[in-house]
């Protein structure tokens, strides 16, 4: 008769492989799930960086253009072709007051040269709550941007170009690269240089610490000879969420009658002298073109510019600063500003 001890040993002996296997399996499963949960945290490409939040625009770059509007003949650095230049030279800002245009939004390219703060937030969906899209909205006036992250195809060539256009995105490292097609024809700069409805815009979102740099690139085969590139940096707002206001827009009479189309015939735009008048920049530079973007262009400007430089007032009298910094400094002495807003500002009357 087997002893209790031997029966116990026999029982254990039979059970031992099963116990070991079970323990091994349990440990393996535990470790697997730990590793897999780590893997799940990292493979979700949509979450490579968190862009969500409110972003202030310090607007220390091109501040006059972005805040108050560009000068009427300021196309410096724009790679315009002959058609683009002709269109820009014919532009009258009174066109914005056409009743049919009063409630037109700015398009997606306007993010690059507007001064508005941004709010960015993810749109989640599906059973696992993955990020399907990122949404951008500035404070007002823009058609908005939804960056689809789910790999969807662009609409047909026959589909309407919506006010929000169509944008898809993917990650490269921590950079979100968004490609926008289906935009409407709209201003590339607020003084009459337009981009066509065949344009493609690429926005690369690059987070750095508490800042977000966005590199905007516009390809326009109709009006430009080279990519048009703006980089803008925003700072994460820590004090307040950016309000994305959606005020209703009612068409009012803004000075241009229905059916009227304000413009300047070729060679008859009286406002093509501001860059020379205020900055001594000659017309061959202010008219734009790809060569005005490069360092070599300075050689062409140098002699004439230095000759004219002594004619500048010793103290700047107009457009020496912008209202943001005047407000910040308060009652301290400021340079004297010019008397009137520049022609060419949205809604302002211009000679026509």
């Amino acid at each position: 008769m087997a002893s209790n001890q031997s029966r116990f040993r026999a029982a254990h002996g039979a059970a031992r492989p099963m116990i070991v296997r079970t323990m091994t399996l349990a440990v393996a499963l535990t470790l697997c799930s730990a590793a897999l949960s780590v893997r799940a945290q990292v493979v979700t490409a949509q979450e490579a960086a968190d862009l969500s939040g409110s972003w202030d625009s310090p607007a220390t770059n091109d501040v006059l253009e972005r805040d108050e509007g560009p000068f009427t003949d300021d196309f410096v650095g724009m790679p315009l072709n002959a058609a683009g230049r002709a269109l820009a030279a014919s532009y009258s800002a009174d066109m914005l007051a056409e009743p049919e245009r009063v409630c037109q939004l700015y398009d997606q390219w306007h993010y690059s040269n507007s001064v508005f703060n941004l709010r960015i937030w993810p749109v989640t969906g599906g059973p696992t709550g993955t990020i399907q899209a990122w949404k951008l909205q500035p404070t007002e006036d823009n058609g908005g941007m939804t960056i689809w992250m789910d790999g969807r195809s662009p609409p047909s060539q026959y589909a309407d170009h919506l006010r929000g256009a169509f944008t898809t995105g993917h990650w490269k490292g921590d950079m979100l690269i968004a490609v926008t097609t289906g935009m409407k024809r709209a201003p590339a700069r607020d003084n009459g240089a337009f981009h066509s409805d065949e344009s493609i815009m690429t926005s690369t979102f690059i987070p750095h610490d508490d800042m977000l740099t966005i590199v905007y690139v516009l390809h326009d085969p109709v009006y430009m000879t080279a990519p048009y590139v703006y980089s803008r940096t925003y700072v994460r707002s820590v004090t307040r969420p950016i309000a994305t206001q959606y005020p209703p827009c009612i068409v009012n009479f803004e000075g241009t009658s229905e059916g009227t189309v304000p413009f300047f015939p070729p060679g008859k735009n009286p406002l093509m002298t501001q860059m020379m008048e205020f900055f001594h920049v000659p017309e061959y530079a202010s008219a734009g073109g790809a060569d005005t973007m490069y360092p070599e262009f300075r050689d062409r400007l140098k002699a004439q510019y230095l000759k004219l430089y002594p004619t500048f007032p010793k103290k700047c009298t107009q457009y020496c600063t912008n209202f943001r910094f005047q407000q910040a400094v308060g009652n301290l002495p400021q340079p004297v500003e010019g008397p009137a807003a520049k022609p060419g500002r949205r809604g302002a009357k211009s000679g026509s």
Partner: protein
Amino acid sequence: MRTFLSNCAARLALALLVSLGAATLVHAQGRRGPGGPPPPAEAAAPVDFTGYWRSVVQDEDWVYRMVTPRPGDYAGVPLKPAGMQVMDAWDPAKDTAAGEQCKSYGAPAIMRVPEHLHITWQDDQTLKMETDAGEQTRLFHFVPSMADEHGPRTWQGYSVAQWQLQSQGGRFFGGGKPAWAALKVTTTDLKAGYLRKNGVPYSENARLVEYFDLVQIPPENDGQWWMVLTSVVTDPVYLFTPFVTDDNFQKLSSAEGWEPSACSAMW
């Protein structure tokens, strides 16, 4: 018992290896593999900034960069009244006579001067950037030297660099080669100079933080490489908020267009 335990340990180890074998890319930010010093900066870089570059000024303060700004024009610069006084006293002839014609070529300003750049590795821990405009040289030290870091003030100051490493599609931890990186450079020990050629000043207390990124334009495989620079200048003496600017550079295939020119107080 001993056999039981050794069998168990062996199986456990096997299970461990199998389950962790599924882990893929890793995030190497600030971490090193088990044992050994970190690789040198040049070897650790998953992106390549070397080569020739040229400024592309598409607006982005064209009238303050492509030409000498008007006297007293500081639009966009958050300048305190003390800074305005310095600006109003700007005298390029006096700067030239004093041998200070490079005042507008210091680190906080040099990247905004339309120019060509030549970037190389001086050694495997120091990236060198030369400019043709003003013939300046910047050194980005990945391993700062205490002796050099607080030496005499210069136009280019002392720059400490680090890679901000990134992985494709997410953040990981562990070892392995990262897929992408930005370059962060912090510069101090500056000699007082000008943010703009017309005398808009920065003091020797200024601090410059820069982020260099490589971007392809367009983003497809044959897109041309551009370098996008985000600069933040803080100066408690002359600026009441940080001065944040962005500049773009296009990669060139050769030194074509490289034209060294001496500093000029006027142009």
